[in-house]
């Protein structure tokens, strides 16, 4: 049979949309049993300390308190909370509760009680004597510091990532191609600058939350707001030191993740309470906890050397990244890689590159995965350096990129030697230039009222799944009356994959979208899928849908042929019926589904897994127009134009909103959001009062278009969209500000204060 293209590329509403917009109780806290124990965590007031004594007796006498756990009560096997494929590159450096606390907010005790009031009261009555230690707070001094964040002998690194706890190193390494020093020495122009990106909070509207119950078989059921249900199963088993067979993880509707929920931030606390007490338990993180004890973006300092000849041909890129993993190593070894591997390949034709990195422990909140995953940081540095090169050359930065950008068919040495098999970056640039009316607006226009308007540009790439690692899977079942069940292993966290994957299935099976019901993740039911991260779902799990449908069609034809008394070769399937090619007989899908429930030995079910040896990058171009008040440095974002090559957009509405949302987060990172610390190591932006994510008045106008390439290895030509879209605002806005003021802000966020100070120094 031939595939139709009826739903792929169509802006159908999400299957769960009406439940969401009418406020149905579908999220974790809405469906938690009423008799759940309330679980909260006592947190350290010190950045680095040892617990000498901890007294819980008085607290335990508060009426309604059921359990108080300290470091003495938890398993002594270290694990990582990073939701990654086993063996995780992130070090095994955690216990559920440890005697050594490593950041302000680190877990000291777990309290479970029948009411929130009782738990709050008990938290205040726990007496802790701390031996306060000197913390390592500056990540520039962490490597080989005499103070060790993880001196313990039980610390373990499972993968060869250059980790060494005796040196405060989470990872260290170097990758190169050609002789970068020699090529740079021969360049007419070398830009050498240092860029600094900060920790950012994902700030998904639904904070971290989980509830846990015991099932009739004595197993622990974890219902969690997570992107990685199967990794949660493994991590809970590791943390509690119990068999994985004892754990079941269910993912309900999720109120946003953006990478935050690729780390098992909160799940272990109610899990150990339920495992030890047998009683249902839940934890709902406050926004305060989500700001001080979660998994924000890795702060990075990036030193770039970028060399070009006098004609603007980029010859070499040398990048050193120092990444701050904070108190624990979650996602430390892997995020740093993307800072080089997903920035340098945009200029694949350069003769040489070098990418070196160190990832260090400090006594700050542990970092984690945040949309863009290191690429965002690397692209701020490399794209800013390219913009500075253009200004030094007195060349239009669009032209400089047209001369140097990666194009379809180019080999990308810094991207594991992969070839850009699908790449419309050149078309993205041309279209963005038109949309922005770039030639008229570049570089800046004095508006005559003390304000200057200026434009800036940046490019971005990401990947589509982790090549050679990630697994995407679905199961398809044919039911009576001929409707299908699609059991999805990837986590829809608001991203709409339950719908887009069904769109793919409907086109493969030539049926109505409504003929496919979807089932989100339940580790007891769904086939194994790594989870929704690394921009993997559309590409990888989408590919699994295509494979699974092919297998299902064969089974339907086999069964249909049997019922028709024909051979497989004599029949075909058109989505509604199996029919003999000679036109003599046919049987409907409905009848096959119904008949197969009687006297049948062939299960009309199919499961396929998908993995990929390549990770085809989506590409995009972003252009910003800002207006700067030359007296005060106050900067307003007027317009943001983005053109994206995500291969085939499976659902243009969802792809567009993904892009607009990612850009908005990128704008927040560029202009507003910062995580800073007191001298003692306490996070200052501990609520939405201080941590300002953009409102609808802060984002200007965002305009998005698509310039599609066709990725042959992807389902219906699709690549990923989720992460590539967050990367351009920081470098594009920084360059626009530089064009207005002459000031290059190299440390995010780009605030009026920094611009003003720069203008004062400049003049």
């Amino acid at each position, binding site marked *: 049979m031939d595939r139709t293209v009826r739903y792929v590329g169509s802006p159908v509403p999400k299957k769960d949309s009406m439940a969401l917009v009418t406020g149905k109780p579908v999220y974790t806290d809405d469906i938690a049993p009423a008799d759940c124990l309330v679980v909260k965590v006592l947190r350290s007031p010190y950045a680095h300390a040892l617990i000498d004594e901890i007294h819980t007796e008085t607290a335990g006498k508060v009426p309604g308190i059921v359990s108080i756990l300290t470091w003495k009560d938890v398993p002594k096997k270290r694990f990582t909370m990073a939701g990654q494929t086993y063996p995780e590159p992130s070090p095994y450096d955690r216990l559920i509760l440890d005697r050594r606390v490593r950041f302000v907010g680190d877990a000291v005790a777990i309290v479970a009680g029948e009411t929130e009031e009782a738990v709050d009261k008990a938290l205040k009555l726990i007496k802790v004597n701390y031996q306060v230690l000197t913390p390592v707070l500056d990540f520039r001094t962490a490597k080989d510091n005499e103070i060790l964040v993880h001196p313990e002998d039980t610390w373990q690194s499972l993968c060869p990532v250059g980790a060494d706890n005796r040196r405060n190193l989470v990872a260290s390494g170097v990758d190169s191609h050609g002789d970068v020093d020699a090529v740079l020495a021969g360049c007419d122009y070398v830009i050498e600058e240092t860029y600094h990106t900060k920790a950012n909070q994902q700030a998904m509207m639904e904070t971290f939350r989980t509830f846990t119950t015991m099932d009739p078989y004595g197993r622990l059921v974890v219902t969690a707001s997570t992107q990685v249900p199967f990794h949660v199963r493994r991590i809970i088993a590791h943390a509690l030191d119990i068999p994985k067979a004892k754990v079941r993880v269910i993912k309900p509707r999720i109120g946003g993740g953006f990478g935050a929920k690729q780390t098992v931030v909160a799940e272990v606390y109610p899990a150990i309470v339920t495992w030890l007490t047998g009683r249902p338990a839940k934890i709902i993180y406050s926004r305060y906890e989500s700001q001080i004890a979660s998994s924000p973006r890795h702060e990075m300092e990036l030193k770039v050397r970028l060399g070009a000849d006098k004609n603007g041909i980029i010859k070499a890129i040398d990048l050193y990244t120092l990444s701050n993993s904070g108190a624990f190593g979650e996602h430390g070894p892997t995020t740093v890689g993307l800072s080089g591997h997903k920035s340098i390949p945009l200029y694949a034709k350069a003769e040489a590159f070098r990418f070196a990195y160190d990832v260090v422990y400090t006594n700050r909140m542990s970092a984690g995965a945040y949309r863009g995953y290191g690429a965002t940081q690397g692209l701020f540095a490399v794209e800013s350096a390219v913009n500075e090169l253009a200004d030094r050359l007195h060349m239009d930065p669009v032209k400089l990129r047209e001369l140097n950008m990666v194009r379809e068919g180019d080999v990308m040495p810094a991207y594991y030697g992969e070839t850009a098999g699908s790449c419309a970056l050149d078309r993205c640039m041309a279209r963005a230039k038109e949309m922005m009316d770039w030639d008229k607006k570049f570089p800046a226009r004095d508006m005559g009222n003390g304000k200057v308007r200026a434009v800036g540009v940046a490019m971005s790439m990401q990947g589509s799944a982790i090549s050679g690692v990630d697994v995407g899977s679905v199961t398809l079942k044919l039911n009576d009356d001929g409707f299908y069940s699609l059991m999805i292993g990837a986590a829809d*966290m608001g991203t709409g994959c339950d719908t887009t994957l069904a769109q793919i299935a409907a086109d493969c099976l030539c049926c109505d979208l409504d003929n496919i019901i979807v089932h989100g993740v339940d580790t007891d039911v769904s086939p194994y899928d790594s989870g929704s991260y690394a921009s993997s779902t559309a590409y990888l799990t989408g590919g699994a849908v295509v494979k699974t449908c092919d297998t299902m069609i064969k089974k339907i034809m086999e069964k249909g042929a049997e019922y028709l008394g024909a051979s497989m070769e004599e029949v075909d399937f058109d989505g509604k019926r199996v029919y003999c090619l000679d036109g003599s007989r046919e049987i409907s899908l409905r009848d096959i589904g119904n008949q197969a429930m009687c006297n049948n030995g062939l299960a009309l079910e199919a499961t396929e897994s998908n993995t990929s040896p390549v990770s085809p990058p989506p590409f995009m171009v972003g252009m910003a127009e800002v207006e700067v008040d030359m007296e005060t440095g106050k900067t307003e974002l007027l317009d943001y134009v983005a053109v994206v090559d995500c291969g085939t957009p499976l659902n243009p509405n969802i792809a567009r909103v993904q892009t607009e949302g990612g850009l908005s987060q990128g704008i927040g990172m560029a202009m507003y959001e910062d995580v800073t610390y007191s001298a003692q190591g306490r996070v200052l932006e501990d609520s939405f009062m201080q941590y300002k994510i953009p409102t609808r008045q802060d984002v200007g106008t965002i305009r998005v278009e698509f310039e599609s390439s066709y990725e042959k290895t992807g389902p219906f030509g699709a690549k990923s969209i989720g992460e590539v879209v967050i990367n351009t605002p920081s470098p594009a806005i920084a360059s626009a500000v530089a064009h207005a003021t002459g000031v290059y802000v190299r440390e995010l966020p780009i605030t009026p204060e920094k611009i003003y100070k720069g203008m004062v120094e400049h003049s």
Partner: protein
Amino acid sequence: MEIQLTLNGKAVKDQVGADTLLLDFVRKHGCYSVKRGCETSNCGLCTVLLDGKPVLSCSTLAARADGCSVTTLEGVQEKAEAIGRFLAGEGAEQCGFCSPGLIMNVIAMEQELSEPSEEEIREYLAGNLCRCTGYMGQMRAIGNYLNRKGEEQNG
């Protein structure tokens, strides 16, 4: 203390603490559409109507609602569907966690402003944060919803 109020058209009488928040009170009474996104009156997810005016239920004592009429999305399901269909039509509900609070405030805006400009809409809804959509899709949806209503009235 005991309070009496009308919750989505039904009389409710209950004991509350002096510090019980309206948000926790309405959720206890089954109105799960009302969400807590922060504790600091910044996100707008907990918006309900108190005697027809939008308030942040995370920052309103349940005691203050004594004798009042409280409306959550559960009480205006037809409206929720009507506005929600436009959000869904743009893919602009995304994770959906902020949708109930946003829709409640759109309902309040409709009552307060006639034919609001885009700037007025942005200003009125500035307190409704969303981390998924970048707001553009929401603005398209709300614009389409208001225009369609205008067309219905004119036609």
